């Protein structure tokens, strides 16, 4: 297993934290937010459902998810934590590998270095995105988590054969944290080993006739999928998957499902049927992916533990910077996170 990225993450984490020693830091007053960007676009939705029949032919189902968290502020930057998890179901048992948490002290001075170093560690070869500017401080938690997520996705693609790999989100690329070549590379590696990538989006901005595609559900007994067409994103955004609406269980839950474009329609349908036959599905969402999300999400308890770790190991004095909203507006100030 390629351990370059975790190794780099540790080195950078420790290096960045050493520079924050004995500084006071402000606890993050915002609630946990895990971001996911979408581009609203118009498209066609084929209302004729594609019925699905669970296929019980045994295969591995694996999923990836990552999580990021801002755990506090220092006088010069922010303290962030990222964590990722791979979960797979094999022989009816779920297993996982969880990486992290990795804690970083990101400042205006070191953010470029941190991000570029990780990109280099991950990409190995120079990439077009390497030349882009590094993200701003607010974007750093998400971007760092995305880097870890891509690395975990690559690892799964390289290690699993003839399985289903579930991603959290879409197969949209061309964004700063998902370069086209990178996503293509991941999908290609997966295909070479007989794997099929299915990407589930918990939220979508895609609309059909003004309605969210996940709200336009025909009266048909689930499980089924709806096919979309004529989805043309504006450059530099590229869709590397075919977009479907998947309603996999009873109830009114449906998700946007992207399936690798290079996979034939029939194989794509079979892949979802195999997912139905091999994984638990609740509220139309695969359990493997749910577990990956649950395992990497930071609980409040863990946030306190990380703050305790930083305070005890790096002698940080915890201070509370006044919340200006509360200070100015009293009970009408709902806190900076809700401004």
């Amino acid at each position, binding site marked *: 297993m390629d351990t370059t990225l975790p190794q780099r993450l540790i080195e950078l984490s420790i290096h960045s934290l050493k520079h924050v020693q004995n500084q006071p830091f402000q606890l993050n007053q915002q609630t946990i937010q895990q971001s996911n960007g979408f581009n609203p676009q118009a498209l066609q939705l084929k209302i004729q459902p594609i019925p699905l029949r669970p296929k019980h032919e045994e295969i591995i189902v694996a999923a990836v998810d990552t999580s990021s968290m801002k755990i506090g502020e220092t006088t010069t930057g922010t303290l962030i934590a990222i964590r990722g998890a791979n979960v797979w179901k094999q022989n009816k048992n*779920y297993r*996982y590998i*969880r990486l992290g948490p*990795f*804690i970083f002290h990101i400042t205006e001075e070191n953010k470029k270095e941190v991000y570029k170093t990780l990109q280099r560690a991950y990409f190995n070869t120079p990439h077009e995105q390497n030349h882009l500017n590094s993200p701003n401080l607010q974007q750093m938690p998400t971007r760092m988590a995305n880097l870890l997520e891509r690395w975990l996705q690559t690892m799964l693609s390289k290690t699993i054969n003839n399985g289903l790999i579930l991603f959290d989100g879409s197969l949209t690329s061309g964004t700063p944290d998902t370069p086209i070549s990178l996503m293509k590379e991941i999908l290609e590696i997966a295909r070479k080993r007989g794997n099929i990538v299915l990407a589930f989006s918990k939220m979508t901005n895609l609309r059909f006739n003004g309605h969210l595609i996940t709200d336009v559900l025909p009266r048909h007994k689930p499980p089924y999928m709806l096919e979309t067409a004529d989805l043309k994103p504006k450059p530099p955004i590229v869709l590397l998957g075919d977009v479907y609406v998947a309603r996999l269980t009873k109830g009114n839950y449906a998700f946007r499902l992207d399936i690798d474009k290079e996979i034939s329609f029939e194989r794509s349908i079979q892949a979802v049927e195999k997912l139905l036959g091999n994984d638990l599905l609740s509220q139309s969402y695969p359990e493997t992916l749910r577990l990956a999300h649950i*395992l990497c999400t930071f*609980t409040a*308890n*863990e946030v306190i533990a990380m703050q*305790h770790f930083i305070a005890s190991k790096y002698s940080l004095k915890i201070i509370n910077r006044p919340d200006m909203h509360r200070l100015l507006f009293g009970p009408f100030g709902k806190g900076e996170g809700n401004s």
Partner: protein
Amino acid sequence: MKLYKKESNIVQILSFPNETVEKGDYLLIEDADAGKALIAQVIDVQFANIPGILEELLRNLPDGGELVQGEDFDPLEIAPHITYIQDASLLICKIRATVENENLSPSSSWLPSRSQSTIKKLPIPTLLKLAKVDGKLPIVLGGAKDSSLLTIDASSLDGRLNIITGKKETGKSHLSKLLMLNLIGYKAMVVVFDLNGEYLSLGMTVDGKRNAYYDKIHVLAPSQNFKVALKQLNLHVLLEILIHALHLPGTSAREFRRIWQSLKERDMLNLHELGEAIRNWHCNQHVRDALFSRYYALVNSGFFTDKFGEATFLEECLFKANEQGGAIIVNLRNTSLIDRQIVVEYLLGKFVELLTNWKLKAVFLFAEEAHLYLRETYWDDIVTRMRHFGIFTTFITNQPDTIRENIYRQADNIFLFNFTNEHDLEVVSRAARVDAETVKSIARDLPPHHCLTLGKVVRDFPMVVKVKALDVKTMGETRLFFKE
């Protein structure tokens, strides 16, 4: 440890896994700037309400209740910190006193600094020293929670009403024996109403040899070596027996009084003459029948005798014990309910008589399961009137609801062993010398032979003690059928 909250006289303290604190421990919350400290006792240990703990626990059990197997790559070793936070506990503590310049006051009206206060365990010896739980007549009860010895002063039992209670087989009798033997050691006179014959061999060691108390333990077996001649009896004592133990109606009691006075004037007070007098007395037939039935109850008890020589042992023992200290064990094991009541009525009347005349100095009375032989009206009598005569009672029971609430309210010391039953704890918690929360919370978790000591003996600082072992033959074991 960190001070978290204070409400009324309860403080909540956040404690971390490396700080081992248990129920019953004492903590010193010291505010150096204020120059004062609070002494608080832990009455409950709870999990701290850590944000996100439910999610943390739930995510480890998503697979149909089984743990999801996996590996964690945690290079910064955050996991121990998570465990550290998760295992934090919240100590619910009762404020017992404030220390200022080494002086104790029961006040809890001030608030120590939450951020600056230091909190540490208060060793029992230090607390005992601060509370001045010392004296010239030490009784070592056993080991306190921090393995130090808990020593009380015998004088704190003097003139006091004590209760030893707890469920079966927790060590109540053992503690009463320990207190009793120590009192004897200080030349006190102890009387035990021994319902199960547990105290008979206190003069012997476990291996059957005579111990230091051998000559001071006097066992009285009613109807055997303990008999009474009618001449020794006061009329009012006998009337108490007839009315309260044998339920003689008032009219018949009046006739009996006349018969008694008639016999006394003729110096013919003996059982035979009493029987003849009842037979020949001019009275209503129903009264005669009533008197006869009681007369035969007295005769059949075997407790009364016409031979004066047989009836001297009690006074001999009493005077010996009064001079040198000693225990009079009244063995009520093989005695019927009526006979028990007769014996107890007689003894209490006798003690009052001797104490009133200053023939006895004071009596420490140990009464096991007193509801089985003590009449209703005697309870108040014992804790109020008789105390002034010099009868200092220790009630021992495993049924706390057999002791009236007013007895608990007046109890000076309570030695509380384990109770799990809510109702039992509710009864005991009515004691005036302690708050209900302490009793309910600590007593429920006491292991066998551990006792929560409350009251004047510990200067109202409730303390848990493991009662020390005694090298005496206890004979308190239950007879078993399936015994190897």
